[in-house]
């Protein structure tokens, strides 16, 4: 049996539902001597800004129970360098490439997205309105329904690619934010970004992260992510991409059952760098074993009780 692993997200088709998450796979090229990129459904770039960005001072990483905190501060090479130095190499692989964009203002978001106009190898634009690690932009947009609407509208008008709004879990009503993103023109939603958090060094009474606060990710956040994917995918007709703590095959199945059409692997790449390609293989074996011909039949298959 050769199960069909492909999934359709509106106009975007992935050969399988496994993608790597923004900020958790570098620019996609760092691990090419360790794994075969061609096996993946897609990769999402590190958040790109109009100009190169330096990021926050050390420390940027802290491990916590079943997860980690990060405060990278969107350090990135900028959209121009991505187009010139990274994309040509990535283009050799037969996978979906998603550019994740961020800005401090509506105009910067739009201008960054506009740089991908007509760039055929970019299959979609993911809009980061959910990063907790910057003074401006990011989560400041994603926790306010009206700003969410405006920034997605601005990006939608600036681009000719499908738009994915990446949502923040740091809100009381995720469905309300998701609705406004769709009103603004989001073709898809991806959730969740990290949970805003703090780590303290009790020896010296100081915060551990250079930026004081950071974002919590990893298996610790999976139940929150599952709940939000479930709520949002039931409430809205657009495809949902799920992420948050996915580390093994059953996590993938659960996210799809909760309503995700595809998933992104984040933190797990750091401690298990070949996890994403292995998940594709395991997903295929799982479908064969359970006699599932099309993986897409799992999407939203969660029974009510």
């Amino acid at each position, binding site marked *: 049996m050769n199960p069909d692993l492909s999934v359709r997200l509106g106009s975007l088709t992935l050969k399988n539902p496994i993608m790597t998450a923004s900020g958790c796979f570098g620019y996609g090229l760092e*691990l090419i001597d360790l794994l075969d990129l061609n096996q993946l459904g897609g990769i999402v770039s590190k958040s790109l800004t109009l100009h190169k960005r330096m990021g926050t001072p050390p420390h940027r990483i802290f491990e916590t129970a079943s997860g980690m905190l990060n405060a990278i501060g969107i350090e990135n090479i900028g959209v121009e360098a991505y187009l010139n130095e990274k994309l040509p190499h990535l283009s050799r692989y037969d996978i979906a490439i998603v550019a994740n964009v961020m800005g401090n203002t509506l105009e910067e978001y739009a201008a960054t997205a506009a740089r991908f106009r007509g760039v055929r190898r970019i299959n979609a634009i993911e809009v980061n309105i959910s990063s907790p690690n910057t003074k401006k932009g990011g989560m400041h947009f994603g926790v306010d329904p009206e700003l969410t609407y405006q920034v997605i509208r601005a990006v939608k008008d600036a681009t000719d690619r499908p738009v994915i709004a990446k949502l923040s879990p740091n809100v009381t009503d995720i469905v309300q934010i998701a609705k406004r993103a769709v009103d603004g023109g989001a073709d898809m939603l991806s959730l969740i970004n990290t949970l805003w958090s703090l780590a303290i060094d009790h020896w010296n009474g100081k915060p551990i992260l250079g930026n004081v606060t950071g974002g919590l990710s990893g298996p610790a956040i999976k139940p929150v992510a599952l709940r939000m994917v479930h709520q949002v995918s039931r409430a809205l007709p657009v495809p949902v991409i799920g992420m948050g703590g996915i580390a093994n095959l059953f996590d993938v199945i659960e996210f799809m059952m909760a309503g995700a059409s595809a998933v992104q692997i984040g933190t797990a790449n750091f401690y298990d760098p070949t996890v994403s390609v292995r998940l594709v293989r395991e997903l295929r074996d799982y479908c064969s074993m359970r006699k599932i011909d099309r993986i897409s039949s799992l999407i939203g298959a969660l029974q009510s009780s």
Partner: protein
Amino acid sequence: MPFMFKKFDLLAPIVENICLGGKYYRIRVEAPQIAKIARPGQFCMIRPQYSGESLLRRPFSIAAVRDGELLEFAYTAIGVGTRLISQSLPGQHLLCLGPLGNSFPVVEGSRALVVGGGIGIAPFPFFNRVLNQHRIFPNTYYGARSAEELIYIEELNQLSHILKIATDNGSAGHHGFVTQLLEKDLDESPSDSVIYACGPGPMMRVVKSIAERYGVPAYLSMEETMGCGVGICIGCPIPGVTPDGQTTYYLCCKDGPIFPSTVVMI
């Protein structure tokens, strides 16, 4: 990809894990693919195969390659990750990703001055051996808190022109800082020297200023908390300056861990 960038992610059987005294341990694992291509100064990201709630691997310098296929690490058990490693038993496995990062450059025809502080001595059994293969017999300066915390003494002695020890409490060697020994020798003859250092932040700052004062090149093995070890999390910034004088962050795992002292701001 060029051969030099090849890395392997192995489930490496532990063949030995012993306490060297106090919080100091030595672990040996079978990892022939990594052992064959590793160069001194490089590191691996390691973690026990099963480690409960501790997810991330930890970076460790390759302390030695034994019999061409065993990797040896020397470590101090300080927090959750290193404690779990210290409790691992032969027959169990370590997840071991490597070899990672750049290596100490061998500068032919120079006098090598190797400076290690505390567990910062870890990369030098390996490096000194490679220096010896190039017929360079380094002066090794090794500082620790006390005599009990000195490790690899015999091996370093064999691999060095001279091994000089300093302890904070005077229980062995010079009573004081290891950098005082380095400075004294440079005072006598600075010419053609190259410094290689690995140790705690304050020691590295002094080494950098000594190198600048005597006008000798120094290569510093830097440390920063790492998420991935391979450049995919952007999590290990080392503040530095670019060749054209701009401030920047280098990545400890990808651009380092070894940096010329002139490019880092410490």
